[in-house]
């Protein structure tokens, strides 16, 4: 079994889905011969030809709209935004057409919009955005945020097979940093949407997180273990559908909930999780629900500022110690 990076796992998932289903195709800027800005679609045009690996003009609304129409007409498009940030231009198509079509006429829109997401790579305000919260308010979209190479593979395959529009937030910082032995092809594992993963079991407090902050939370759990605090880490994997049961089960067990994400604090997905926990696990809580997230500013460029913006391992550790001591 080959060790694959998170990025290679995405590439493998695309190859495997292209192989399994002739309706699947990729489209986006530079996705064809070039294999995309990051190489996620590498080798696909060479293997499947130009009709299934389409280099489009720079037109994100058009790309999303074309994907929606093709999906409705029976194909299984996987549209790439060169950077997640540019999905702002496709936002209207995704929420206006893709998200509401099935509700209105029962006509499914099976498509994936891949959004290279997140900071920590010196991308500055326009190449670092976390876009998941832009979409989670809107009914009709699934939102997927893998944290590991295994999940990047298995969740992308599940997203392509899903009959609904999926916003797939793949984290750029994890592209080459997350690695695992990922079985592919016939042995490939599909990870169902809507099932969270308990990344580490613990009994004193729950960290509920997803994407890039899972690895930070795991490191924090290691540190606290040595200090005698047992931390459970729940990786949500998908924000829509949300595995409420997994969140509540963990919080009811530990009595303390901390939500961690890289996205801005205010109106971030953590607010939703906090509200659910407060309402549905209130009697189990031994401490206030805590959130650790980025500061409420655009994402600054220079490393010293970007570090200040992002939630760090130290930020999570400090908050977790306080929560453990509460």
């Amino acid at each position, binding site marked *: 079994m080959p060790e694959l990076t998170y990025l290679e796992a995405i590439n493998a998932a695309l190859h495997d889905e292209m192989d399994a289903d002739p309706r699947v195709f990729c489209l986006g800027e530079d996705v064809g011969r070039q294999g995309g800005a990051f190489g996620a679609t590498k080798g696909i045009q060479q293997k499947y030809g130009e009709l299934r690996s*389409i280099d489009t003009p720079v037109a994100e609304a058009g790309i999303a*709209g074309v994907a*929606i129409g093709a999906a409705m007409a029976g194909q299984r498009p996987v549209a790439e935004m060169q950077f997640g940030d540019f999905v702002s231009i496709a936002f209207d198509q995704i929420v206006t057409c893709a998200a509401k079509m099935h509700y209105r*006429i029962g006509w*499914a829109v099976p498509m994936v919009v891949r959004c290279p997401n997140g900071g920590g790579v010196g991308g500055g305000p326009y190449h670092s955005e976390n876009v998941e919260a832009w979409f989670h308010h809107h009914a009709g979209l699934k939102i997927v945020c893998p944290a590991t190479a295994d999940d990047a593979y298995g969740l992308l395959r599940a997203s392509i097979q899903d*009959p609904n529009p999926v916003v797939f937030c793949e984290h750029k910082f994890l592209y080459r940093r997350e690695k695992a032995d990922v079985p592919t092809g016939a042995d490939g594992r599909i990870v169902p949407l809507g099932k969270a993963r308990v990344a580490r079991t613990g009994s004193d407090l729950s960290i509920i997180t997803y994407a890039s902050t899972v690895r930070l939370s795991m490191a924090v759990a290691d540190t606290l273990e040595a200090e005698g605090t047992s931390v459970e880490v729940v990786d949500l994997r998908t924000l829509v559908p949300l595995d409420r049961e997994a969140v509540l089960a963990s919080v009811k067990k530990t009595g303390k909930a901390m939500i961690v994400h890289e996205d801005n604090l205010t109106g971030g997905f953590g607010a939703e999780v906090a509200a659910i926990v407060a309402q549905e696990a209130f009697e189990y809580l031994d401490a206030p629900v805590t959130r650790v997230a980025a500061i409420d500013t655009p994402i600054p460029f220079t490393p010293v500022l970007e570090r200040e913006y992002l939630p760090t391992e130290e930020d999570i550790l400090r908050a977790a110690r306080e929560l453990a001591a509460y």
Partner: protein
Amino acid sequence: MTSPARKISVVPDLPSVEVSDDLALDLYYWMTLTRAVEERALNLYRQGKLPGSYYTGRGQEAIAVGIALPLVRGEDGDWLSPWIRDLGSYLVHGVPVWRIFAQFMGKAGSTTRGKDGNLHIGGREWNIPCQVSHMADMIPLTVGAALAYKQRGEKRVAVTSFGDAATSRGDFHEGLNIAAVLEVPAVFVAENNGWGYSTPISKQTKVTDLHRKAAAYGIPAVSVDGNDVFAVYAALKASVDAAREGGGPQFVECKTYRMGGHAAHDKYESYMPMEVLAEWSDKDPIKRAEAILLEEREITEARLESIRERARDEVRQAVEQAEDDGYPDAAEAHQGVFAETAD
């Protein structure tokens, strides 16, 4: 007793198209039915029996009908995404009349089961996606459907219509550009009626001959008299044939005039020049078709009257059926956000 089909040549760039008397009468029937439905619906709206707003395409029936008649109907047929002025397109492409009234009334038999209103009509069985309000959004979708047909090597086309003001929006430009580059079998129909709500086209764009915008993307484009149903039909037929045969995207501009307000509640008298309205009233597409049928094709007035009678009957029955229909259960508001299957 049918006289030989007439060849109708619209513009020098397009091949002429044969229109038999039967087809000519078909075009007339669908326009008549369209107007009959709209007149009845407008009455119902004024009686307070239709929730929401009411939009009519009065005066633009030739476009609505001429777009749809050259297409293949049914789930495996051609994709058609009409604009709000194009009730006739929905009728021709297969949506039953009573379901359109049910749609206006918000009844369970509406194509959206009451989840959307007015001309947001659609369904897989007719290969009509449900249009959204956001002008020009359906253009990239139509390009995507055309791409799907091309990818699978199917001889199908995807057609969409939109108003002149939609040509100001980004999705118009992105959609046309992608269609041209990917050489997909899409046909775009711009309905140039001179107005976008209260804004005249002169304030909408400097390029008021909309087909020139398509030419800028390398898409073959023609402009036709949108009040001449035979011209619209011929232009669409030729363009659809060209797209179907691998000629890539095509564009047809239909020049017409909006014969009233943006919607039934719009006080258009305050901004529309009445003398221009009167001029266009003389160019009414149904009257014009009647004149051609009677004088040039020597169809009898009795035959035309029987067609009008048929349309009136259909409308009467459709309204009854829609009125008898129930409303969806309140529980349905919660249902259908996500699909269980796409097949």
